[in-house]
């Protein structure tokens, strides 16, 4: 699949925008080890929904808007794919604790936020977007699954697709399922290359994506401080992809390629071959 990445959004401790990421990369992310996580402010979400939204929703909506702003695409018409290994573990924990007690009456808001497509819905409301959206999962191989699904949607519809990938830091007992040390969200606008070539964008990283039937470890970021952060979250590979995109842009007209691999299932991976910048 020939795709072009035209938008990037991100939120983690010390990294809250693509511009901030590019700036931090110049000194090897020196400030990252001391940085604390601050949740995003849900400014894009209409006030009626805002009071109902939790961290997973706020994160997803924040990076979705960031990526669209970088790309310049129409927020009201882009289809979207949301992906997470564990989903909204804060809500899962609330539900299971409440249901293990004597008083099982649940908050209706927490229940409707417990569906895994809740962040996608709040994004759609915040952007007045009636295009298809979905939530996909692949447990610890979710990023590869998300890249595959978003790219196939983009090629299939010959239109941009927004990919939003996130996982929250886990607390006991759900850290038994996956010990996630840092909350992280990344988003990419993925376009069919021949569509992306029709307009000027501030970011345009061409890539060939293919599904390969053997297992490999996920590509890690090159910068050591960034790699340490990435290793704490199933979506950490997204930081490696952001890093390579920023590096591709910095190279200007130099030719060259950079290959990233993300597991997609226990015996397969998604290969992303970044080709050049325009």
């Amino acid at each position: 699949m020939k795709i072009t990445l035209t938008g990037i959004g991100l939120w983690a401790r010390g990294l809250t925008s693509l511009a901030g990421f590019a700036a931090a990369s110049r000194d090897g992310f020196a400030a990252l080890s001391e940085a604390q996580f601050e949740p995003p402010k849900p400014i894009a979400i209409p006030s009626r929904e805002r009071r109902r939204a939790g961290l997973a929703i706020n994160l997803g909506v924040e990076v979705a808007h960031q990526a669209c702003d970088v790309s310049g695409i129409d927020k009201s018409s882009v289809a979207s794919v949301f992906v997470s290994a564990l989903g909204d573990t804060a809500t899962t924990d609330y539900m299971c604790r409440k249901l293990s007690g004597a008083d099982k009456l649940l908050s209706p808001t927490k229940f409707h936020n417990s569906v895994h497509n809740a962040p996608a819905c709040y994004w759609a409301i915040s952007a007045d977007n009636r295009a298809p959206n979905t939530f996909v999962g692949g447990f610890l191989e979710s990023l590869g699954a998300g890249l595959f699904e978003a790219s196939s949607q983009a090629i299939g519809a010959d239109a941009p697709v927004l990919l939003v990938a996130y996982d929250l830091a886990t607390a006991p007992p759900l850290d038994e399922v996956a010990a996630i040390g840092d909350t992280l969200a990344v988003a990419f606008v993925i376009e069919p290359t021949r569509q992306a070539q029709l307009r000027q964008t501030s970011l345009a990283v061409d890539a060939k994506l293919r599904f390969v039937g053997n297992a490999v470890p996920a590509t890690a970021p090159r910068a050591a401080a960034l790699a340490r952060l990435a290793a704490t979250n199933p979506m950490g590979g997204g930081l490696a992809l952001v890093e390579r995109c920023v590096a591709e842009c910095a190279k200007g007209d130099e030719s060259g390629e950079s290959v990233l691999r993300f597991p997609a299932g226990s015996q397969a991976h998604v290969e992303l071959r970044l080709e050049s910048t325009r």
Partner: protein
Amino acid sequence: MSAFVNAYTLTSALGNGIGALRKALRSGRSGLTDAPWPGSDVPCFLGRVDVPPDLSLPAMWHSRNNALVELALRQDAFAEAVDDIRHNLQPERIGLAMGTSTSSIDRTEQAYRRLDADGRFAAEFRQSGVHNPHAPAHFAAQRLKIGGPCVTVSAACASGAKAFAMAKRWLDQNLVDAVVVGAADSLCLSVIYGFHALQLVSPQPCRPFAANRQGISLGEAAGFALLTRERSADARELLGVGESCDAYHMSSAHPDGLGARLAIEAALADAKRGMADVDYVNLHGTGTRANDDIEGRVCGSLLAASRALASATKGWTGHALGAAGMVEAILCLDALATGFVPGTRNTACVDAPFELLLDNVEQRLETVLSNSFGFGGTNCTLVFGR
């Protein structure tokens, strides 16, 4: 590009496998019962599956939801059909697209009831592959030795339908040669108390589109279909898919059914069919006041220009949530195969602006349409043909 359904199976409150499903429908036996659910005091009827305790699942996969998956895979020689196709194809060219909303949350609930003194999961519940949204796909993929893309779609009550949409994209783009489409959702306290919190659970067996409807009856199910680009002798065709979002509210549909209409129109356009070509519509028809009112208005205007039969089948099976799209896709596929069209069980006094099929009928069908709408305003419509 074409996507053909070569094999399918369904295990639901109507029984295990297609034979049991046909028998229950023809004998007029609904799967809904008021037998109490362990740990619940919510007055309701449920469409439950009798899951035998001796399925011999490996301990790492233990959960009611995975047991449902296993039970479904043992019916109608479905796993054997996947084995057969594997002999002729590269392993990475066979994918799995799985819809679920509950995943194995039944097991996570159980783990929380049995936390150890440190507040952690007791040893038998330390099953990382089970307590996550991808669990049924993960389990089914290793059970069926799937080597290609294996992706879960979890979009509330549209999940099962959206798994078909995903599979059709993969086949259309030649990313795979075959896709196992699956869906599995299981009854658990999360859904019973969740819908109870929203005051949507009917104390009576659900009565879709009835004037005296009082809400939903929850159910559970697992089903599978095997899709390829090649047509086998008695295959049906997945003609079109349509997806949309209401962008309106988390748990209330758009009052004019804007998203529902977009999904239906997109599916018909994808299928290159008009409403006049459709012979049967399986409505989402949950039995809540709001859903049936809004879906009724959308379908009322569409069905006015159509000779299609229309029924809502959740009075038979219960609302299997993330698997509902699969249940109803298979009811549609089997109606195409047999000419037996299920009516709207439990409904007598109709409140719908179109003619609702109440009693089962026998009629040859060429083209059928199935609606699935979910929380988050997510909508998916499928069109199948002979």
